[in-house]
Every structure is written in C-alpha cells, then in structure tokens.
C-alpha cells in the first residue's frame, strides 16, 4: 500500500490540508497541519496567474512569489517535509506552465526525487494530458484529476481514466474561496462518481468550518480545505502555525465525530 492508499484506508475520512509553498513559514505551517491531524498535505506551487483561484489563494501566490520562491525552493520544501514526516503523503498542486517549463519528464523526475506522492494540475484536462500524466505515472506519482458539477456522465470516464490516488470533487462550479455548495448536491455527485470508480473521492472548494467538514465527511472519503488555512497565513504570518493546528484539530475531530 502506498502512502496515499494508506491515508484513505484509515477508519476515518481523510482530511486533506492545503498550503501555498513559500507563503509564511512553510515548514512550520505544514508541521502544524500534520500535528492537527491532516492525513494528506497539498502543497500549492505558486503561479503568477492562478486562474481557478479566488482572492485568498491569489494573494498567497503573490506573497510567495514576492519573496522570490522558485520551483527549486518548492521541491526542497517537499523534500524536507518527507524527512520530517515519512508517512504523510504530500501532493503538489498547481498550474501547467511551471510544471512543464523544463519538460514534463523533468518535473516528474524532480517530484519523484522529492518523494512526492501525487500531482494535481488544475489546467491540464484529460484531453491535453498526453505528456504530464504518463510522465508522472512512469515515476510512480499519482496524477490526481478534478471532477466538477459540470463533469457530466459523458465526460466522467475520461476524467477517471488515468487518475490515481484519489479523485478531487470540486463541489462548486467556480473558483476557490468563499462559496459553499449544498450538501444534497455534494452527496448526489459523490455517489454518482463512486458508481464509476473505486478511487476515493475527496471534496473541496468552499469548505471553511468544522461543521461543513463534518457534513461532507458523512458522504465522501475525504475533505479538502484550502482558502481557510491560507487566510490564516495571510492574517497571522509567522504566528499562523498555532492557528492552523487549532483549526485542523477542530475540523478533524468534527469529521471523526460525524462518522462514528
């Protein structure tokens, strides 16, 4: 069993926590998320043009790039994380251009050297995934795809084909940030997706509170939280880790209680 499979085989639903690399003290932030009970870390690779992100993650990207974060820095953060946390899976999330700048194979090799478990590329749909997906699979890294409310029955098989690790269900047709999807629609879509795949399904976009996380935990295999953490880093800077750990604990306990 690899690290991602193990994370989704626990008795409780997986909690997937997002942080933007290079925003605040990344090592301390990631440690706090793990200490709070995160089962999977999603490390955002900063990009100048994060088209699918709302104001919170856009600002985090710009804060990070403003400090001069490079691709080499992000890979080093992943490498260091692996040394400190041998068991916790780490997934890189970002946009196509920084990932393919030196070629898909270069990126897959570099990610593999950093012992990264999966990669989510927001703007490479299955139709254009002739290079990155195969390069990642070749190195044993899971290409994790996104399914959305607009992914209809005709498209779903193409999205699932070639996906590994887990499927990320984006609960709202929109950008990351404040909107919330109705739990009924999440439940219906997750069960629709699960009829077509054995992959675990994690739900994200718009999850900000322990109550929301708990509700989703009842119907999905995992919950992804991003903007709520990123906002804390934006507000508290180097003092953010304690806040991140507290919010993570609150979310993971609420999720476990909801499932028991």
């Amino acid at each position: 069993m690899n690290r991602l499979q193990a994370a989704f085989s626990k008795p409780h639903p997986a909690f997937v926590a997002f942080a933007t690399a290079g925003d605040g003290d990344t090592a301390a932030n990631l440690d706090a998320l793990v200490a709070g009970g995160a089962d999977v870390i999603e490390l955002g690779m900063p990009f100048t043009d994060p088209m699918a992100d709302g104001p919170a993650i856009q600002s985090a990207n710009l804060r990070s790039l403003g400090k001069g974060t490079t691709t080499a820095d992000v890979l080093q953060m992943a490498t260091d994380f692996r040394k400190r946390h041998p068991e916790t899976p780490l997934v890189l999330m970002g946009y196509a251009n920084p990932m393919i700048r030196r070629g898909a194979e270069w990126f897959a090799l570099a990610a593999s050297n950093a012992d990264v478990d999966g990669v989510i590329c927001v703007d490479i749909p299955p139709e254009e995934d002739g290079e990155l997906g195969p390069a990642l699979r070749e190195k044993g890294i899971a290409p994790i795809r996104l399914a959305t409310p607009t992914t209809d029955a005709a498209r779903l098989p193409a999205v699932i084909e070639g996906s590994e690790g887990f499927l990320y269900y984006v609960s709202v047709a929109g950008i990351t940030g404040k909107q919330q999807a109705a739990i009924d629609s999440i439940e219906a879509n997750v069960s629709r997706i699960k009829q077509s795949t054995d992959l675990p399904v994690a739900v994200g976009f718009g999850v900000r509170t322990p109550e929301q996380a708990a509700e989703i935990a009842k119907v999905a295999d995992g919950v992804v939280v991003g903007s709520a953490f990123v906002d804390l880093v934006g507000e508290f800077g180097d003092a953010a880790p304690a806040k991140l750990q507290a919010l993570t604990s609150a979310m993971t306990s609420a999720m476990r209680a909801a499932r028991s």
Partner: protein
Amino acid sequence: MTENTPNSFRTQPDDRGHFGEFGGRYVAETLMPLILDLEREYRAAQADPAFQAEFDDLLEHYVGRPSPLYFAERLTEALGGAQVWFKRDELNHTGAHKINNCIGQILLAKRMGKTRIIAETGAGQHGVATATVCARFGLPCVIYMGAEDVARQSPNVFRMKLLGAEVVPVTSGGATLKDAMNEGLRDWVANVHDTFYIIGTAAGPHPYPELVRNFQSVIGTEARAQMLARTGRLPDLLVACIGGGSNALGLFHPFLDDPDVKMLGVEAAGHGLDGDEHAASLLGGVPGVLHGNKTYLLQDEDGQITEGHSISAGLDYPGIGPEHAWLKETGRVEYTAVTDEEALEGFKLLCRTEGIIPALEPSHAIHAVAERAKQMSDDQIILMNLCGRGDKDIFTVAEKLGVEM
C-alpha cells in the same frame, strides 16, 4: 520554409484545436464541458446560412463594411519604394477591427440562449466593441480591465459606461490585460449557466482562436477581392501589428495559400528586445501554457509569466494566439518587432503624409512598412491592415511628445 511544409496553411486547427503543437484546451475541468458545448454550437452556426446572413447584414449596415482599400499615394512617394495600400478597418464603427469579432460572438451568445456577456480589455477597444454590441442586443455586460489600464485609458472607460457596461477594475497581479483575462475566466467558471465570454483576440482555449480568426477573416477576404479588382493582382507583402494576433490573422488567413504573398507580423518591442520591457512573445518568449492554450509566452525560467510592456496598451499581452506560434514555426509568416519610439515615428508619418491619425497599435506596423517599402521596387505592393484609429491615443502621444493638454 521547412521540409514539412503542409499542403495547405488554411486547414488548421485539427479537431482538438491544435495548430501543430500549439493551441488546445488547457482549462480547468469546470470549463471543459462549456467549451465543448461552445464548439458544437459554433459548428452548427457555421453550417447555418441564416447565421452567416445575419452576420453579413450587421457588418454591412451596422459596422460599415466593406472597409475601403486605399492606395496611400503620398506615403508611397515619401518612402520611395513599393506602393503602400491600407485596408481601412479603422473606419469601422467603434474605430477598430475588434467589432467584427464581437458581432460574430454576440450572435453566437444569442443562439446559445446566454443572457449575460463578459469580456476582458486592455486598451479598451475590445471593451468598447463588446459594450457596443451588448447595447445593440440589449444584454447586460461586465468588462474586466486591469486597474493600470483603467487609469491609462480613461476615455474608453467612459465610453463603455455610456454604453451601459459595468467596468470592473482588476487589481490582482500586474493589473493589466492578462490579469483582466484571468478575472474573465474566473467569472465565467462561476457563471457558466447564463454567461458568454467574448474573448477579444485569437487566443484562449479552442475554439476561440479559430472562431475569432474566422470572424476577423472578413478583413482579408474583402481585401483580396478588392486588390484583385483594383490592380488585377495580389499584393507582394502583407503587414499587420500583433497583440494577441486577431487583426493580423484576419488579414493573413485568406492569403495563406497564395505562395507569392509574403507576410510580416509586427510585435511590440517596447524599450527594446534586449531588455525585459517589451511585449514580443514570439521573438522574445518561449512556448508554454496560459489562458487555455499552448503558445509563446513571456516568462521566466520557472514558468512564471512576466509583464509585457508597450506604449500601446493593446499590444502589451505576454502571450500570442497559437496560430501565430504555428505560422512562425512553419516559416509561412515572418515576424519582427518595433519599439515605442519607432511606433511614434510611424504614427507621425501617417498623420502628416495621409491625414490619417492611426492607433498606436498599427503605428508599429506603419514603421515596419516604411522600412520594407524602401527596400522594394515601385512595381511591388505592400498591403497593411490599418486596424484602428488614433483618437483613443492622443493623450498618450501628447505626453510622449511633451505636450500638455
């Protein structure tokens, strides 16, 4: 031209929207079903004579087409070489070629039952053209414009507002055209059920580069027929300026399979190609993925997009339509770049010799025409797309010339 020269240059893109290795549909999954739907609707519209008839009718009676083909006699004399002819798309309603595309796209939006229009704009020309067609069809309209550009282009902001559009200043990133396009894409993702995104140049995810090119091809189709009727021959060289590349493709595409017609695309060299302050994606960039397609981009070694610079807000986009990337690689079109200073020279030259105040975008092309004409003989013909008029730019030019207004 290379060994793998295709039989025809006019059959791109393939059915997945690729121009060679460029183009494609690099969008978030939320948008994929939408752009597939747009493509289906566009194919149906292409096959529907009523759609084409309505497009043609509006271009004739609302936009004022066909635009004239004009022999610039005094400019030709001043340059002392090839004959210079202009396709006068600056005489269109709203003052640029942008409206051709907006008419086509709003008819598509109507056909698809969409009730809200969004667009991005840099100089404001595409924003004005979009606001215009929205007023004409009674649809609400939101224009995203970088906050920097809102400040630089206040007359066009006021025009859009007069036409009933809501202008949203975008402050993220560098607050210019690329950031406005990001914001347009974000709006579209969140409002896919009722919203149509009118993209202003031959870029973005498939099918936008193809459909924008096709709507703009009216320029080259008219010019080719007009030139044949007036001179009995085809031009030797076509010249057009390039921001995202729509006016250039509009002129070039109908001539691509005329092997004796050479073509020159003119990018903005800003303060010069040797520094960072330019907007020449083809000459100074490398291939990458942005805004839904693979194309040449201004970017650093980590793939972060860098800001373009040009005196003309309509040219400072860090990317370029994917068809140009392909035309460059195949060698069918030659590309060059012209600096801010040289564009100003071109601007002044046209004002004085022909009594036409051009926009700063085609002023870049005018400078390139002046250079080439001098190296050619008087029995040769250069045809340039005069794609916009300069009313919007007089404040920028006054400032550059040190004149207080």
